[in-house]
């Protein structure tokens, strides 16, 4: 028996007119190896359906987390939204326009930071803003860069190179670089996955603070239930792959600004947490069982 879902929706999110981002029947197929040469060498493989019929409507200024078992296709979905990966079926609309490629309307934060090692903190931000807004005057650009360095708490580290920074500080740069171009949507793929628990907690608080300040639409992939509950307005839970779908979507009604002590007092906190735990447990166990049977 499952506990009754709290405020859960069906996997097919109904199309919405007010949505900023609409993911409609999106699927991703990684083509298998075919062709004569592969046939001769016996290296043919079948097409791999990573995700199938994903439907999700994201309203402006919401913080959405995606959680699901490892390898289910979360990164694949996020990369399709970012325009870095092609869409095999369905469509993704941003403000009603289909996404065809990457663009500065979406800022991306990478799990392994992806900072340019040869650029200082400041230069990493400058590279971003110069690329996106080449017409801006030097003065305006410097002001925006300075603002964002302050926003993520990196004052004093402007002239340092990434290898001189700790992991937490590097991801602060990663977040600042994504925000400095003033995107409509912030995409984060396990942004704190490579950090230790304490640093992770600090950065979660920072993201919460920054989100209160900017209120941008955020789509974040995470493996942490507490992280999702602390930050999100909605939590999207995906099933295991192949052909991963959205299982259910939880609404997180905690008032903002939030902090980890007060949300735990909220009457729904433990119910939501239990719901997510049982979902993740069920899916992960099925993945493991499938692996043993192979």
């Amino acid at each position, binding site marked *: 028996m499952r506990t009754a879902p709290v405020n859960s929706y069906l996997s097919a999110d109904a199309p919405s007119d007010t949505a900023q981002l609409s993911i409609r029947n999106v699927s991703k197929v990684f083509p298998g190896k075919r062709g004569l040469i592969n046939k001769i060498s016996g290296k043919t493989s079948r097409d791999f359906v990573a995700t199938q019929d994903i439907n999700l409507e994201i309203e402006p200024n919401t913080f959405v987390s995606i959680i699901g078992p490892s390898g289910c296709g979360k990164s694949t979905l996020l990369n399709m939204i*970012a*325009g*870095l990966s092609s869409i095999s079926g369905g469509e993704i609309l941003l403000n009603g326009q289909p996404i065809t*490629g*990457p*663009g*500065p309307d*979406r*800022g*991306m934060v*990478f799990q*392994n930071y*992806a900072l*340019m*090692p*040869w*650029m200082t903190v400041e230069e990493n931000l400058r*590279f*971003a803003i110069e*690329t*996106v807004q080449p017409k801006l005057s030097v003065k305006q650009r410097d002001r925006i860069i300075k603002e964002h360095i302050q926003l993520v708490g990196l004052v004093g580290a402007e002239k340092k*190179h*990434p*290898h*001189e920074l700790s992991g937490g500080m590097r991801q602060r740069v990663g977040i600042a*670089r994504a925000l400095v*171009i003033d995107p409509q949507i912030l995409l984060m793929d396990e942004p704190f996955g490579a950090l230790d628990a304490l640093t992770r907690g600090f950065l979660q608080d920072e993201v919460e603070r920054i989100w209160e300040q900017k209120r941008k639409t955020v789509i974040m992939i995470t493996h942490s239930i507490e992280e999702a509950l602390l930050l999100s307005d909605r939590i999207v839970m995906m099933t295991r792959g192949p052909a991963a779908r959205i299982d259910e979507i939880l609404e997180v009604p905690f008032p903002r600004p939030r902090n980890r002590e007060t949300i735990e007092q909220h009457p729904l906190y433990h119910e939501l947490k239990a719901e997510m735990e049982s979902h993740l447990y069920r899916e992960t166990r099925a993945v493991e069982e499938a692996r043993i049977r192979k």
Partner: protein
Amino acid sequence: MTLSQPTPVDLIPSVSKDPWWQNENIKAAGLFALSLGLFLLFWEIGARAGWFVKGVPTATETIKELWWWVTNPFYNNGPNDLGIGWNLLISLRRVAIGYILASLVAVPVGILIGMSPVAYKAFNPYVQLLKPVSPLAWLPLGLYLLRDSEKTGIFIIFISSIWPTLINTTFGVANVNQDYLDVANTLGSSRLRTIWKVIIPAALPNIVSGLRISMGIAWLVIVAAEMLLGTGLGYFIWNEWNNLSIANILVAIFIIGLVGLLLDNLFAALEKFVAFGRNS
């Protein structure tokens, strides 16, 4: 804990309480000096006692010669009697011209090839075929085509120092971390901007290590090539061989080694400068 309490000094482990002769660097320097001394002593005694073939100079003779050549580097009594400084400059000039020309070709071509998998596959056979050819195999061809020994020397440096830079540049460009390219793409960076601001800096450690290998090869090759040309350190050795002056040959070997070492250290420093914490 109150502030007035003094820090318990003896609880802080001392950074180094070892006596100075336990230091690794000092030990290494001592071993180096000892082995050098033993080697020179063996050489000196052996040469005096006639352990080696006839005509081998003693260590003291050789060091005196070295001192003389180093203190009189720039004299000029015609091409067969030229100060070692002049010969060194002549060799360095040839290497510089050939090497710079090779780098000017290898780096841009490597970048172009590295960015296109098709070009990589198409041009790889040339590189693989020509890379293992001994530089001196080009000598007759160079003399025939250029009809000039000076140009031939430069041509040989060019043709032999082009490959490591080309191969390393291609490799570096072809293997730029996909994350950097994704960053550039999500920002909507133009192709040209991505090349300048991302691909080249990302590949720079590989490019510089290619340049370093090429420089080493150029310096190896110039000495061999000059034996067949007319001036330079290689010719100096050849000439001293004809004079049967083994001491001078040893002096030249030492100087060639020393210059090679300095050049290599220069590039090692450059490698470090462009690494920014990568591959370390």
